[in-house]
């Protein structure tokens, strides 16, 4: 069988599992998968900044939260708003925030970028608590209607059923991840990576670094907004603690570090690993902090490039050991 055929088969198998997942694993794990998907997209969007453009953000929750609050507010106040426009409005909120911040953020990098995001992230969090009449304070906005997925006159799918929401979420999140992955493969993706490696050189090849950064920034903001919007609909709630807390900003940093910052799929793997671990800890121990603290320390000490980095290193070692001399060159 050719590689191509194997890939196709793997793809079809994966799709089949995804389709059958709710009936195979039941509601609880279906919901777990949606949570995983949301955080995977969120982490991927974060890593678009960190891993691909070299920009570390400590306030990515801003966009996650903006997406969530945007959708929640829209569904609360606009009667009869359909599903996809609600999603779009959440994304628009995140993008609007991105547009607002971009002129400031694209001119800086490194620690300043990280810190400024922390500052604005905290400001948003405090404001969400403070502006109770709009945001509902710590209670957040909840209990808003979740519209069905409908094509007028053709079909209407109830989104309150976990399995249905699962398909909707998987489609939206999957498409977003695919779109971001695709972007990394385009010429623009090349330029992004160039900005990470050597912004000066990028400028001396005729690219405008701030403009490039701005587009990446908006991509990251928008896709974090998608994640936040789906999260709000999934939970039927968006709150300061759940969507804007500094822990929410820190989550993608951890997920990305565990999975591997250098790879597109690292954050997704990190989310999966983290999902499994937190599932286990929540069942078997109350020492949640100890477990996550120890994991972080161990990852940094022994797998600083994340699981994917560890895997690459192991593969390279295995090659070097088992392959005959001269064949150790990486495959072309």
């Amino acid at each position, binding site marked *: 069988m050719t590689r191509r055929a194997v890939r196709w088969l793997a793809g079809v198998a994966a799709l089949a599992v995804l389709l059958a997942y709710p009936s195979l694993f039941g509601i609880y794990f279906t919901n777990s998968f949606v949570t995983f998907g949301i955080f995977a997209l969120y982490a991927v969007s974060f890593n678009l900044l960190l891993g691909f453009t070299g920009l570390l953000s400590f306030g990515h929750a801003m966009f996650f939260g903006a997406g969530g609050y945007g959708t929640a507010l829209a569904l609360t106040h606009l009667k009869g708003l359909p599903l996809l426009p609600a999603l779009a409005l959440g994304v628009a909120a995140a993008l609007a925030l991105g547009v607002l911040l971009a002129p400031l953020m694209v001119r800086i990098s490194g620690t300043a970028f990280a810190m400024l995001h922390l500052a604005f992230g905290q400001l948003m969090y405090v404001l969400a608590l403070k502006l109770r009449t709009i945001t509902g304070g710590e209670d957040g906005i909840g209990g808003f209607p979740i519209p069905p997925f409908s094509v007028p006159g053709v079909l209407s799918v109830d989104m309150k059923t976990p399995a249905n929401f699962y398909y909707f979420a998987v489609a939206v999140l999957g498409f977003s991840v695919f779109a971001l992955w695709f972007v990394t493969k385009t*010429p623009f993706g*090349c*330029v992004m*990576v160039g900005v990470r490696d*050597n912004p000066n*050189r990028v400028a001396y090849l*005729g690219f*405008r670094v701030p403009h490039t950064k701005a*587009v990446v920034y908006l991509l990251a903001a928008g896709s974090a907004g998608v994640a936040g919007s789906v999260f709000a609909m999934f939970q039927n709630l968006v709150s300061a603690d759940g969507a804007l807390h500094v822990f929410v900003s820190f989550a993608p940093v951890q997920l990305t570090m565990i999975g591997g910052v250098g790879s597109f799929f690292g954050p997704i793997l990190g989310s999966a690993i983290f999902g499994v671990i937190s599932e286990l800890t929540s069942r078997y121990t109350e020492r949640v902090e100890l477990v996550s603290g120890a994991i972080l320390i161990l990852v940094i000490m022994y797998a600083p490039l994340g699981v994917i980095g560890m895997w690459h290193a192991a593969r390279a070692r295995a090659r070097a050991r088992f392959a005959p001399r001269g064949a150790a060159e990486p495959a072309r």
Partner: protein
Amino acid sequence: MNVLETRDLSHDFDGLQVLSHVELGVRRGERHAIIGPNGAGKTTLFNIVTGTYTPRGGRVLFRGQDVTGAGPHALVRLGMGRSFQITSTFSRLSTFENIRMGILGRRGIRFNLLRRVAAMPDVTREAEEVLRRINLTAERDLPASLLSYGKHRALEISLAMTTDPELVLLDEPTAGMSRDETKTAVELIRRLTEGRTVVIIEHDMDVVFSLADRITVLHHGEILATGAPEEIKANRAVKDAYLGD
């Protein structure tokens, strides 16, 4: 006609004067070397001309157009290219990807988010062509940081050339190279800059005298002399500056 001109260019860092009243003229098609002792302001001059800094005083003209204060990207689009004193490539990317970045820049493919770059055969072909020209085909997929020093410098220089600039500024292209490497590099520069205007900062006098059509000597931020290699060799002030430093 001058491709590049500076008029009364002055610059200082927090009051420390690094360039004063520099009047430089680079003729179309010539190879113009800028020499001078360390701290003479050569790299600062480059940085101003290529848009990294905006000068405190004076103007920069490129192809007769006032480009003072224009950013690097704008100057590159007008036809300027540059290499750096400290090798400045995309160290984590492969040699091929480095060159491809330049090709994308030259073709003005900047915000294409809809097509895979792998599905752009023209770009790939052109990049591979460049690799062949600079003898890096074997190192196509090696990260730039793993290239040997000489090859890394060659990549750097050709990267500056990928945008097909009319004027190339090379900042100490042979610094830190062995004698053999230098020879190859000079050869490469000669080949790649065929038909272009070149400004080069260089310490190695052999390189300077074998490459340059004209030479400008910078000292304490001021132009000491400009002229053909023989004139410079004979210039008394230049001798004093170098020996007295």
